[in-house]
C-alpha cells in the first residue's frame, strides 16, 4: 500500500499509521498466545510529514518496559494532527455542549519523527 501511494505521488498527502490500542505480553501464556500489555509497545508511521527512517524510543531487553523516554497517546495525537496541518492546541470538539481538547493539553508532538 505504501509503495502504491508513493508510485501514485500520494504519499506526501497521506499519513499511514500501523498501531494497535495496546501491546502484547513479552511471554506467551498457557495457550501459547499473548495477553494485553499496555505498559509498553510500538507503532509505525509513514507518509505525510514523517521523517523516513527515524527510530524513536526503545524497550528494555525483555520487551516489557519503556527504556528511556516514553510517549503517551496524547503525544501521538499531537504528532498526527501536526503533520496533517491541524493545530492540535487550538482545535476543540464539542461533546454534549462541552468543548474538549482533540489531544491531551499536557502532551506535545514528537519532534523526532517529524520531517
Amino acid at each position: 500500500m505504501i509503495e502504491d501511494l508513493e508510485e501514485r505521488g500520494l504519499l506526501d498527502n497521506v499519513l499511514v499509521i500501523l498501531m494497535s490500542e495496546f501491546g502484547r505480553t513479552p511471554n506467551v501464556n498457557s495457550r501459547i498466545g499473548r495477553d494485553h500489555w499496555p505498559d509498553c509497545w510500538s507503532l509505525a508511521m509513514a507518509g505525510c510529514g514523517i521523517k523516513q527512517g527515524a527510530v524513536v524510543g526503545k524497550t528494555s531487553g525483555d520487551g516489557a518496559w519503556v527504556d528511556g523516554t516514553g510517549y503517551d497517546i496524547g503525544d501521538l495525537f499531537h504528532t498526527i494532527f501536526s503533520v496533517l496541518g491541524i493545530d492540535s492546541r487550538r482545535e476543540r470538539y464539542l461533546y454534549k455542549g462541552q468543548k474538549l481538547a482533540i489531544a491531551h493539553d499536557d502532551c506535545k508532538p514528537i519532534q523526532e519523527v517529524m520531517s
Partner: protein
Amino acid sequence: MSPPPLDIKSVRVAKEFKHEAQLFRARFSPCGKYFAAVGVDRLVHVWNIETGDRKSFNGHKSWISSMTFGDSNNSLYTADYQGVIHCWNYLAEANTRPRWSIPSAARDNIRALAIAGNGRFLLSAGDDAVIKVWDTKSGKPVAQLPGHRECVFSLAVHPDGGHLVSGDLLGSIRKWAIGKWAPAGELDAGALHTRKENFIADVGGVRSLAFSQDGKQLAAGGFRDAKSNAFCPGTPAVLVFDWGSGKQKHELRLKAKSDGPINGLCFLEDGSLAGYGEHLHSATEMAFWTPPTNSPAHALAGHSAYDLDLHPDGRRLLAPVYVSGGTSGNGAQKRHREKYSPNATVLRIYNLFPDPVEKQTES
C-alpha cells in the same frame, strides 16, 4: 529384570527438572537415559535423567517447534518457526554444531517431525501444508506429499511401518503409503475444527495423533466447538478411529474444566490412552482413558502441557508443563513493576507404577 507392573492409577511425579524458559516439546531418547526439550529459548536441551546434568546445543535462530529422536546413531532432529531443520548428535559435547542442516526445509513453521522406514526417513510438516520426506543420513530431499489444504499439526507412523498419517487444521487426517509416498485415504476428524459464520479464521485442528501399540486404533487429539476465534476456547476432545475401517468409534473427554486441545497422545501397552490438556490461565489435567468409556479412568491435575512422551520402558511419561511467572493477563500488576517475571517450564517425569515403598507400607 522385568519392569514393574503398569498401573495408571498409581501415576505420580517421580522427577522434576525446572527450566527458565517456556518449552513446547519434550521426548525421551531411544536409549532411555536422556530426554530432550525445546521451545522459546532457541536452544536444544538434553538432560541426563539419572544425574540431572543438562547440556545445550545452539543453532536455531527462532523458537523451536518440533523434534524427534532418530532410530540410530544418537541422532536428534529439531525444526523451528522459520522452517529450518537441524540434525544433532545428542551425545556430543555441548554446543557441537549440527551434523547437517536444511536451511529452507519449509517456508515457515514446521509443527511436526517423525521418523519412518526403520530410521531411513525424516518426515516434516507444518504451515505450508506439504509433508516432506528427507534422508536421515544426509538431509537430502526424498519426496513431497501435497494434499492438505491447511497447515499440518501432527504426524504419526503406523507400528507396522507401512503407513503414516498427518492431521491438519481443518480436521482432515490423510493416510500415506510409506515408500511409495502416495496418498492412501482420508479419515474425517472434522469435529476437531470450528469455523462459525462470524469467525475470521479456522480454529482447532488435529493437534496430536497416536496409533495403539497393536496398530488397530488411531487417536486424534484437539478441541471442538470453539466459541470464538479470538481466545479460541473450546471443548477438549479425542476421537478414536478403527484403523481397518477408518470409522470413528469413540469420542473421549476430559473430566477437568479445560478449554484447549489435548496434546501428546500416547497409547500404553495395556491399551489405555494418555493425553494432556491446555487451559488458559488455569490448571487442567493429564488424563488416562480406557475406551469405550469416554471420561477418564484416571486423571492428574496440573497446568498446561504441550507434549507427552512415553519412555521406551513403557512405565514413565514426560511432559513439559507450563509455569506462570504471574505476568499474563491485562498488563503489569503492581508487584511486577520492578521486574518482569517470565513464564517458565517444569519438565516432569511421571512413574506409571506403584511406589515400592508405599506398597510395602500398605502390605
